[in-house]
């Protein structure tokens, strides 16, 4: 049974600033930033739990989130998308 989606394309979300002591798939450069959900990729087993050998890693929605380079690094005119599990995200106004 997977977690229900909390976000939809168009929503603005903020990524976690947590630096966990285990394997995770939120890159450092994308931590603590606000982006826009561009796609709902459906539910997938959470990589963090899979890496810790949890037999049935909980399935969570994964989203393609788009960030402006200017927000990530203070410069650049391009965009960066990262595919992120729901627990890496919270809603942003």
């Amino acid at each position, binding site marked *: 049974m997977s977690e229900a989606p909390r976000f939809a394309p168009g929503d603005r979300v903020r990524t976690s600033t947590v630096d966990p002591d285990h394997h995770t798939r939120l*890159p450092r450069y994308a931590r603590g930033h606000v982006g826009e959900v561009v796609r709902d*990729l459906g539910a*997938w087993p959470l990589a963090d739990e899979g890496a810790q050998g949890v037999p049935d890693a909980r399935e969570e929605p*994964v989203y393609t989130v788009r960030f402006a380079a200017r927000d990530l690094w203070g410069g650049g005119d*391009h*965009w*960066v998308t990262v595919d*992120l599990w729901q627990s890496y995200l919270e809603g942003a106004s």
Partner: protein
Amino acid sequence: MSDHHPDAEIAVRVRRLEERVVAAGLTDDAELDDILTRLLAGASPLNGARIVARAWVDDDFRRRLLADASGAIADVGLSMGGGLKVQNLGVVENTASEHHVLVCTLCSCYPIGLLGPSPSWYKSEAYRARVVREPRAVLAEFGLELPDDVAITVHDTSAENRYLVLPRRPAGTEALSEAELTTMVTRNGLIGTAAV
């Protein structure tokens, strides 16, 4: 020539590990050979090229590909199944005002089935570190200079979604067959480090 052959030392380590894995009954030579054969025979950028050529000639396929690539590629006899892990495919389309390029900054995730084994540069720290930060400069190192009014989006493959770039169909190719169009598509074009 140095007497120190690091490759030879690693080869010995690999052979020892393999012997122990086989002795533990976890695999055998036949399976190891089969794994390699499947990779070398089945995984190729020709697969990605066929998807692109079909999208260029069939607009309905192109729309379905952009909406649900995993499902659409069955049209050309391909699927995202058959690997070690279930994965999804996302196709991103280059246009006159948008260019897409792919990376996996955390390791080197790559749609091997559709593109074959990944190139060394894709796996390098230099590419993984730089393309998300200065894609224009990185693309220029590949000989791809994009006009300033073309917006670049870099896609970091951080989950089980694998990406493929749908390059722009080159001008003057209206008379070409789908098979001929397939030969125009390069692996770098499918990653986004070439125009096509």
